[in-house]
């Protein structure tokens, strides 16, 4: 059964090829069958593989399938190989499972779109590339998937390319993440140079054997890989592309910009955890970046008005929690949060999509309202998702995973980071229920038109269930053998319980405050944003990063490009040509046609020659 692993990425890839080459000739039902079916089949295969893997664990907990050797140059032999262990198993289940639900949902959401086939082709390619990324047994193959998902993200953000703003958003996403990718590529150069391999297992093994903890090379590699992760996962300072990425269709935001692709950075850091362990300073940087991002993004989410932008900033913020988990040395907690986040954030995006679908593409939450009455299923599933996001105690998955991250931070002695995380949790609860109360409670704003059918509500319901019960999955226990056991807990169990209670109280406090500010009837405007005033506007603009980067990079690059447009180097040959032309003009003056002038110059020349002969 395990040998069918290759089918998992190949099925969506086949779907992509079929839809690309035949998509425009196929009827919509056929396109749906191929687009949704390929991912569905892939998820079934993934489930079967998981059953086989867990039922009969291969030696070392790793199953490898080598498809072919990519190339073999001077001892570097990257392979197109699939690497299945507990971590990649969890990832493929999430990618294919959540992916399938989102594909199913899209079948209705995108039904009216003229480019239905192109949409599913890109989505299938994305799933294939994401699976390559998480299954890759070699960093170079991982890089292929890494850039591949970036490409699909580009294609899908710019899916409605008739609108110039979407085109720009797509380009921005690709370029900003590519900055991180180049850093990662340089990290790979160092690995090849020093370790002579890019095989995931060999890299970690050789690094541990060759490099002393904290040595310059390993710090550089870890920092550069972190650069890649930061770009893909929209962490500081490369977070600016994700809010704009909301220009894509909502299922795209759910799949790529919430559940899967943006978590690739977390996956990468978890996967190469061995390197980060050798570079403690960079690991601390991971935690600090994560914490800073989670606070900044939570602040920005608090004052947004666009429903998708709220969720986008929320995603950045939750990814910050994952980075915090990675940074305090608990990759299993980070991956746990990654999984629960995939459930509830996909759910929230799909719910938002259902709202947008029903309300004539209205994105402004303050023009929506009271949808509880007209869209009950959407409302209750959305509340479940928001509760998970807010970390509603005991009954939601988000509570357990976020709490685990915070507890590991506390247990690791990072009290400041823990405190910041707790503050972030409070803001998270506040903004998520601000969204819920404004959109679903209160007076009716835009009337709901089209009602979501079963293809939309079934994924919502399943994801809602997962958002609630997903926390009881024993994921950390499964992952710890792969990712390394968490450090010995210094604090006794009682402290953990106390902190859990504290986290629960914080979450409930945030929700209560949201109710007080937004839930009760008779609210005017946006109390939080009004109270924050100019600070609120600053936060709404993403803390001014876009403007800053515009000044620092975009405009100077544009100016340089425009200054060089005519190629100043071309002046060099032009100058030579000008010189020749100048000589021509000067000498042409002597050809004036005057006989006596010629005679005079002849005589002068002869005299001069005579003078030279006589004196020299």
């Amino acid at each position, binding site marked *: 059964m395990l040998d069918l692993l290759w089918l998992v990425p190949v099925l969506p890839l086949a779907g992509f090829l079929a839809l*690309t080459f035949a998509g*425009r000739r196929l009827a919509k039902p056929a396109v749906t069958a191929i687009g949704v079916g390929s991912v569905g089949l892939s998820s079934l295969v993934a489930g079967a593989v998981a059953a086989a893997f867990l039922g009969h664990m291969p030696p070392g907990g790793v199953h490898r399938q080598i498809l*072919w*050797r*990519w*190339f*073999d*140059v*001077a001892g*570097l032999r990257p392979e*197109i190989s699939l690497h299945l262990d507990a971590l990649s198993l969890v990832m493929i289940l999430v990618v294919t499972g959540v992916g399938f639900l989102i594909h199913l949902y899209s079948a209705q959401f995108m039904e009216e779109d003229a480019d239905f086939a192109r949409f599913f082709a890109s989505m299938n390619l994305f799933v294939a590339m994401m699976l390559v990324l998480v299954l890759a047994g070699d960093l*170079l193959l991982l*890089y*292929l998937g*890494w*850039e*591949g998902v970036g*490409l699909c993200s*580009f294609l899908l953000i*710019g899916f409605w*390319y*008739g609108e*110039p703003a979407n*085109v720009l958003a*797509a*380009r921005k996403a*690709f*370029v900003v993440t*590519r*900055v991180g*990718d*180049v850093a990662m*590529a*340089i990290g*790979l*150069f*160092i690995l*090849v*140079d020093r370790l002579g391999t890019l095989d995931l297992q060999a890299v970690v093994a050789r690094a541990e054997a060759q490099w002393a903890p904290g040595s310059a090379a390993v710090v550089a590699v870890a920092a550069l890989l972190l650069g890649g992760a930061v770009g893909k996962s929209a962490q500081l300072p490369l977070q600016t592309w994700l809010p704009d990425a909301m220009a894509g269709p909502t299922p795209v935001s759910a799949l790529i910009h919430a559940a899967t692709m943006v978590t690739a950075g977390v996956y990468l850091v978890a996967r190469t955890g061995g390197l980060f362990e050798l570079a403690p300073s960079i690991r601390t940087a991971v935690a600090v970046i994560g914490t800073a991002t989670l606070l900044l993004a939570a602040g920005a989410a608090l004052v947004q008005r666009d429903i998708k932008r709220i969720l986008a900033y929320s995603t950045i913020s939750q990814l910050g929690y994952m980075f915090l988990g990675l940074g305090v040395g608990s990759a299993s907690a980070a991956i746990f949060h990654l999984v629960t986040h995939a459930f509830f954030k996909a759910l929230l995006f799909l719910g938002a999509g259902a709202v947008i679908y029903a309300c004539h593409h209205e994105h402004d939450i303050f023009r929506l309202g009271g949808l509880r009455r007209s869209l009950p299923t959407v409302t209750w599933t959305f509340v479940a998702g928001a509760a998970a996001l807010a970390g509603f105690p005991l009954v939601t998955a988000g509570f357990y995973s976020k709490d685990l991250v915070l507890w590991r931070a506390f247990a690791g002695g990072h009290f400041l980071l823990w405190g910041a995380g707790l503050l972030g949790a409070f803001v998270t609860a506040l903004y998520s229920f601000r969204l819920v109360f404004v959109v679903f409670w209160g007076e009716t704003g835009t009337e709901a038109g089209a009602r979501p059918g079963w293809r939309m509500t079934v994924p919502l319901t399943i994801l809602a269930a997962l958002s609630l019960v997903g926390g009881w999955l024993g994921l950390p226990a499964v992952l710890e053998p792969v990712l390394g056991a968490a450090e010995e807990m210094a604090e006794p169990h009682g402290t953990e319980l106390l902190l859990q209670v504290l986290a629960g109280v914080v979450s409930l406090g945030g929700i209560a405050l949201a109710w007080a500010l937004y839930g009760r009837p008779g609210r005017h405007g946006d109390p939080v944003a009004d109270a924050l005033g100019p600070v609120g506007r600053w936060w709404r603009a993403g803390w001014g990063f876009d403007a800053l980067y515009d000044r620092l990079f975009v405009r100077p*690059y544009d100016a*340089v*490009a*425009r200054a*060089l*447009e005519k*190629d100043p*180097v*071309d002046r*060099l*040959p032009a100058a030579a040509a000008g010189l020749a032309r100048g000589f021509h003009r000067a000498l042409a003056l002597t050809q004036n046609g005057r006989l006596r002038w010629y005679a005079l110059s002849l005589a002068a020349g002869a005299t001069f020659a005579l003078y030279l002969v006589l004196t020299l």
Partner: protein
Amino acid sequence: MKLVALVLVPLLGGLLAWPLGRRRTEWARIAAVLALGVDLALALSLLGPAGPGGWLATFELPWIPSLGIGLRLGLDGLSLVLVLLTLLVGLLAVFASWSEIRERVGFFHFNLCWVLAGILGVFLALDLVLFYFLWELMLVPMVFLIALWGHERKTYAAIKFFLYTQASGLLMLLAILGLGLAHQRAAGSWSFAYGDLLGVSLEPTLALWLMLGFFAAFAVKLPVVVLHTWLPDAHSQAPTAGSMVLAALLLKTGAYGLLRFAIPLFPDASVRFAPVAMVLGAIGVIYGAVLAFAQTDLKRLVAYTSVSHLGFVLLGIYAWTSFSLTGTVLQMVAHGLSTGALFVLAGALYERTHTRDLERLRGLAPVVPRMGAAALFFALASLGLPGLGNFVAEFLVLVGAWEVRPIPTTIAALGLVAATLYSLRFFQRAFHGPAAEAELADLRPRELTVLGAMGVALLWLGLAPQPLFEVVAPALDVLLRTAGGTP
């Protein structure tokens, strides 16, 4: 003997196409296709295990014995790969100009075949005088291709191209004569054979000057930044087939010259010069990318991307490691295909819209979806997307260069971001945005075949380039050993 035939067949094909084209234009095209097809089969028949010194085949015939000049040809893995590329791109160029060229069709194919023959000869020549002769042979028909079938500023572009190439070629001739003289002084007899000249020991300053003579000629062709300005004019003014041959093949003769002659003949001088060259390469990567971003003329944009891509080649050649040389060869092939395809697309767009101005092309994706998909594919190849040949090439070049000199390599790696900017700008400007109103024909089967062949080849090079590497590896090992690199 096969090697001579390899050069002669396109020459004869050209001679045949000229008069046939006067009768019926189709005959000229078919004659060219047949000649190149036969030649391709001939080249493929040379595939096999490498003999001593990495040679797959050699040929020698005295020409001017008193001066040690001979018709010496040799084919190793490196030459073979470039010969195959030449013939493949040549064939595709004939197909790509099937509907574009309507005037003087016979003479056009004569020139095309002769350029290709000159290029093939350059890749095979093992006698420096013969090499120089063939180097000049490929120049003249190329000038005609630009000057007769080019766009609005064709004469300017043709003259500029001619002057640059000719002047730098003369420097190379001087260096060749100097090297011959040095051999005569040392050994007592004249010889211009590559094998004989390899071992000549030279005084360091003289070696540096002679090396610079060679470098000048190759740097103009490559092109190295500062000497590159003929390229945007020539590429943008030439007809599609001309641009393809220029970008995909003619530039590669510069890289080939550096690999085969400039470095092995002057290893010590090259070591001294390598830091300068690598910095020039890195500058070229960035400079080309920034200028490509700024261009509004589609063909000029693609031309500047060549400057950028061949910056990687220069970087890789002077890093002189196994990684970087393998990457360089792959980059030469992959760039030939991806840029050639972009010129085909630019030509197809020009044929339909009569403009190459990116300000005027807009929203074409819904109008010509196949062309949009193809443009996206090759733009992605050009920005180095993994899975396509250019990525593996650039990765290997950068890995190899990193070991030698990390700083220029880092600068060149930043070129990947710049490449993203220009590729996306090109693609999105022309194909995205509000849908164009125009009614245009999408890619025709013939164009689809040409582009499809190039696309499949790029995918192959990106996912399983090992067969190619195995063909060139023995040749590169020999080069590395002769010039004391680190294999």
